[in-house]
């Protein structure tokens, strides 16, 4: 077993004149969950596509399970499984047929494929609609099937591109549970997300991607300490956002912040306390980068 399930150095990719990845260095330890956090268009899908052999990088190197994603594609394919951003299941087949088809394509005999299909239908709570065409499924069911399909074959590295986007809270938590179980069985999981909370709940390490570069990486705790534990939001009479301040959440820090604000904002300003969002981290990290650059 390699120490790092995923390793990239100076990975670059441009589409035409638009540079999407501009030197990505990252490592993911085997058996851990790694979350790549970034806004729309940051290049998350592009990076996943390169790591899963779908797209060729323009420069740099990337190794998955110890194999080069360009030169040893076939070996990499034997170690990975991908759940893309948009469900990749066959609408005109039933859930059962989708799973069996993937079983056969993964080298199972017909009997093995049938047994594995039954296991996964049960696990993902799809037994009741196993015989219905997937085009009649709800978004959440489709997403569950999509993940089930990627787990048919037992691959050590799993890529999940925004796995919970579009899911309701209950389904999202259930999926988190599943992902944590996968890790406890020794799988390495590389996921992308736009939600800090998701990265916080799941990931052993988080990297933030912006402008084609990794602008910060570390544990959830380390990242949040760079933003603040909580955010104070100030809203005017018409609920318009006036300002956001980071705080450590303690009474004394909140009181200090409010004292500073007294007189600077109208008296009817409303305040609320909330957890840092992806935007806050993003703003905080990009501004510190600019400040560092200025010094």
């Amino acid at each position, binding site marked *: 077993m390699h120490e790092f399930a995923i390793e990239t150095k100076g990975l670059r990719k441009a589409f035409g004149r638009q540079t999407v990845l501009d030197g990505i260095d990252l490592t993911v330890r085997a058996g851990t969950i790694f979350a790549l956090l970034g806004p729309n268009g940051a290049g998350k899908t592009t990076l996943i596509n390169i790591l899963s052999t779908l797209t060729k990088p323009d420069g740099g190197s990337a190794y998955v399970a110890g194999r080069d994603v360009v030169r040893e594609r076939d070996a990499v394919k034997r170690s990975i499984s991908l759940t893309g951003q948009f*469900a990749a299941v066959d609408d005109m087949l039933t859930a059962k047929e989708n799973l069996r088809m993937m079983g056969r394509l993964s080298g199972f005999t017909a009997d093995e494929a049938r047994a594995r299909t039954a296991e996964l239908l049960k696990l993902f709570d799809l037994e009741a609609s196993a015989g219905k065409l997937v085009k009649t499924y709800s978004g959440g069911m489709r997403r569950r099937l999509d993940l089930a399909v990627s787990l048919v074959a037992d691959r050590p590295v799993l890529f999940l591109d925004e796995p919970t986007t579009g899911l309701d809270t209950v389904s999202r938590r259930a999926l988190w549970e599943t992902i944590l179980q996968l890790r406890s069985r020794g799988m390495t999981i590389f996921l992308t997300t736009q939600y800090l909370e998701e990265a916080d709940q799941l990931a052993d390490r988080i990297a933030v991607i912006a402008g084609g570069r990794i602008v910060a990486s570390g544990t959830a705790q380390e990242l949040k300490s760079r933003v603040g534990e909580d955010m104070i939001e100030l809203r005017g009479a018409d609920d318009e956002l006036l300002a956001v301040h980071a705080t450590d959440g303690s009474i004394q820090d909140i009181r200090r912040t409010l004292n500073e604000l007294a007189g600077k904002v109208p008296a009817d300003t409303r305040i609320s306390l909330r957890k840092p969002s992806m935007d806050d981290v993003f703003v905080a990290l990009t501004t510190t980068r600019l400040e560092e650059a200025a010094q």
Partner: protein
Amino acid sequence: MITSRTAPVRNASLAVTNAVFIGRSVRLSLRNAEALIMAIMLPVMLMLLFTYVFGGAIDPGGDYVNYVVPGIILLCAGFGSSSTAVDVAQDMTSGIIDRFRTMPIRSLSVIAGHVAASLARNLLATGVVIGVAFVVGFRSSAGFLEWLAAIGVIALFILALTWLFAAIGLVAGSPSAASGYGFILLFLPYLSSAFVPTTTMPGWLQGVANHQPITPVIETIRALLAGTPIGHSAWLAVVWCLGILLLALAWSLATFRRKAGRR
């Protein structure tokens, strides 16, 4: 149990991969009820139309049915295989192709599956044409070997045309674009000896009609089934079909690779 107790470390063989994809495409064909009904109804309608509506005007002797059967077979084959372009474009633009590409299988087999299903669909439609033809008075002098040869030529034509449509599906950016591009090819049978002898056409059109692939294929089938002189048609038909087949295969392969690399 999330991780499998039974998961093998084997890879699917090429034979299994192809079989799985052919099975998938056949299933999709069977579930696409409208297309399937169309594939069966179209031959019947065309056969009746050409025999009873146009036939009397074109050949008052009533022999037109013997002339027109090969033309209708090819018209239906063209129509039936054009849906391959849509099926292929559908797969290429939905996420499913990416899943197949990240698996240790030869993902081009997805396309081969659609081609095989199209071949099966169109041979079925050909059977319907021939069946209806016999009902409305078609008589053939062909023996077993001639029938075999005729079906061989028809199958080769369908295969070549289907790969051409598959390539169109690969190049097209969307299923509806694929169906649009494919439409153009469906006019070729009318500009051939399928429905009227090319000698009845204006001179400039004869040039086109005599030098396009459909005419030798039609003449070959007609010669085999109706006993008309075959001349150069047989080898011309085979060369045309093989040429189209090889070009379409190369085009498909190149497009598949290019799209795979670029994304």
